[in-house]
């Protein structure tokens, strides 16, 4: 009898051991990953510029939402004082099961200067599982290559499908709702590519997904923010082996499938951007003429014609200048600048009246463009501006003038006079703002650019609260207009500062290129970055797609 009891007891203990092993779930580990430098952070020989050093502080802010259709809400914040280059701390007692989480980390040095930030989002937490996620910390206002293990960067750099030296030219990219990145198409010398790839940011890995239906370059790509956890990707038009594509597609990252929304004219070099979750596709060129339609893809995936441009154009730039009323309703407005009347960009729009226009409420209206003195010192109206990159910058401090400006970088214009004209790379940075008291006129401030970019892409990064400066990441590429050049490929961050000039009693904007720790603004380990795309996620971090690798430009804070 006693033996039987003993046996039962042992069985009970074994059961207890088994249950102890399986019940320990709900653990959540965030592993901070650091940019490449020499060696490890904890050896004596490494460069500690991008390390988390003793005397640094780590601030972790946690946001959550039970449903991704609702915005994230602030949940908690923890500050850790670093005592060692390696450490581990509990950041919260418990996380709510079946909630989505967003984590944002800021690292400051002993002088409380912000040096590294990074974030991940869209993390679904279920307490019946254990989690380990990576959070890459990029340099604030500077570019670094995204890498999982800096000591083993060759094997763990986040890589695209482009091979060494090929670059990401002509490809399209966007950040998904869950923070992952999507990249598609492009070309490699004379070869069009149908590759598509998802970059899984919590795991810092990339994987090829279903290829495009046809190889494409110069297609328009933007995020459609529907109710799904990832959103969907709108892929419109582009150039392929058989000519220009007339199709508008939606890619669903969850099902890894493409769905056609219909066909329009065969176009290339159209531009797409997302406003209030919906996608606007502006212009483009057919093989013979510029196109003047603005299409809209609604959240339920409907392709509609939204407006007609006054001037058909491609190789143009478009910026979101929408306004929000007191009730939170968004009035969609698009500022369309420059461009060409041909797909190759050899014929700039230089007919004065139609250099720029504003699309709003299904109509496109003309807009006057002038400099601060009411003239056109840069001769934008007569020389045009082709393939420049523009993006919106917003200030939350309205003390000194408008809260929205558009910064325009690079591109090229018509040089020379009469019969001896030529294309010249733009040497200026332009900041466009609405003229006070005259919504039909936008004025520009000019600053010289230390680097010329013939075909750049640009995307804003988040600035700190009440900051007088705003920032944007620029994938500059080369200063040569021909697209097969691999010389002097660079990335930089442009800074736009707003201030009040007491002498002239007006707000002025000054743009400059921020200093970088990267020598000559190049990746020292792989300096070729052709005209690839740039995108910014909801955490205000920009990502630039270069040759093989992905680069992160970290913002200063989480955008409001």
């Amino acid at each position, binding site marked *: 009898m006693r*033996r039987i009891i003993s046996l039962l007891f042992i069985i009970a203990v074994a059961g207890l051991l088994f249950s102890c092993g399986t019940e*320990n779930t709900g653990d959540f580990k965030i592993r901070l990953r650091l940019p490449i430098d020499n060696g490890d952070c904890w050896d004596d020989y490494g460069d500690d510029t991008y390390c988390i050093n003793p005397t640094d502080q780590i601030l972790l802010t946690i946001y959550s939402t039970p449903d991704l259709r609702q915005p994230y809400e602030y949940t908690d914040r923890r500050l850790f004082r670093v005592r060692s280059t390696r450490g581990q701390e509990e950041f919260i*007692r418990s996380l709510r099961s079946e909630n989505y989480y967003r984590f944002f980390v800021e690292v400051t040095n002993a002088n409380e200067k912000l040096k590294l930030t990074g974030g991940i989002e869209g993390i679904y937490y279920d307490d019946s599982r254990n989690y380990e996620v990576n959070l890459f910390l990029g340099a604030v206002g500077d570019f670094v290559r995204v890498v999982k293990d800096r000591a083993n960067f060759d094997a763990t750099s986040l890589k695209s499908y482009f091979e060494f030296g090929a670059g990401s030219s002509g490809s399209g990219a966007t950040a998904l709702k869950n923070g992952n990145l999507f990249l598609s198409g492009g070309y490699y010398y004379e070869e069009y590519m149908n590759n598509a790839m998802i970059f899984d940011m919590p795991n810092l890995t990339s994987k090829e997904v279903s290829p495009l239906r046809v190889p494409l370059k110069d297609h328009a790509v933007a995020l459609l923010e529907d109710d799904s956890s990832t959103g969907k990707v709108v892929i419109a038009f582009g150039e392929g082996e058989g000519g220009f594509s007339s199709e508008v597609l939606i890619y669903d990252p969850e099902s890894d499938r493409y769905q056609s929304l219909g066909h329009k004219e065969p176009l290339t070099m159209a531009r797409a951007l997302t406003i209030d979750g919906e996608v606007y596709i502006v212009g483009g060129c057919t093989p013979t003429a510029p196109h003047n339609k603005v299409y809209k893809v609604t959240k339920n995936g409907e392709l509609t014609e939204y407006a007609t441009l006054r001037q058909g154009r491609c190789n143009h730039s478009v910026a979101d200048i929408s306004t929000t009323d007191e009730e939170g309703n968004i009035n969609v407005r698009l500022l369309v600048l420059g461009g060409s009347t041909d797909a190759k960009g050899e014929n700039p729009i230089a007919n004065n009246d139609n250099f720029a226009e504003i699309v709003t409420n299904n109509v496109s209206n003309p807009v006057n463009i002038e400099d601060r003195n009411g003239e056109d010192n840069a001769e934008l109206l007569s020389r045009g501006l082709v393939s420049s990159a523009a993006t919106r910058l917003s200030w939350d401090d309205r003390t000194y003038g408008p809260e929205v400006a558009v910064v325009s970088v690079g591109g090229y214009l018509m040089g020379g006079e009469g019969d001896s004209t030529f294309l010249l790379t733009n040497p200026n940075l332009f900041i466009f703002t609405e003229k006070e008291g005259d919504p039909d006129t936008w004025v520009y401030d000019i600053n010289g650019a230390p680097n010329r970019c013939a075909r750049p892409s640009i995307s804003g990064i988040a600035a700190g609260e009440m900051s007088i400066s705003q920032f944007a990441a620029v994938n500059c590429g080369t200063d040569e207009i021909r697209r097969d050049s691999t010389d002097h490929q660079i990335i930089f961050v442009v800074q736009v500062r707003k201030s009040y000039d007491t002498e002239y009693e007006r707000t002025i904007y000054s743009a400059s290129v921020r200093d970088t720790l990267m020598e000559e603004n190049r990746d020292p380990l792989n300096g070729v970055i052709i005209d690839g795309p740039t995108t910014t996620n909801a955490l205000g971090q920009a990502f630039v797609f270069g040759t093989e690798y992905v680069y992160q430009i970290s913002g200063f804070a989480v955008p409001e």
Partner: protein
Amino acid sequence: MNRIASLLIVVLLVTFVFPVYGDEGDQAGGINLKVGKSFYFEGDIQEQIGDDKEESMAEIMRTPFYRTTWFITTVSVLAIAGAAVGIYFATRTEEPEGRVIEW
């Protein structure tokens, strides 16, 4: 958490299971003693076994429980296990589990 649970379970195992077997063994000896008592008398008659065996068995029957082997073993194991647990908790480095950030 797993380590602590496993350690406690090992202590429980040692505390309860081994004494059960130890107790069973001693009691079996007691039964043998009873059997042996008659056997002794028979044996004593037939094989002339010496008086020292009778004295030894009588001594076992008289031994108080706190001097028994099983009790001392149990107490020793408990003491050692307790010391081990104490040393573990006293010397362990802080390694938070649950929801952690690592750099």
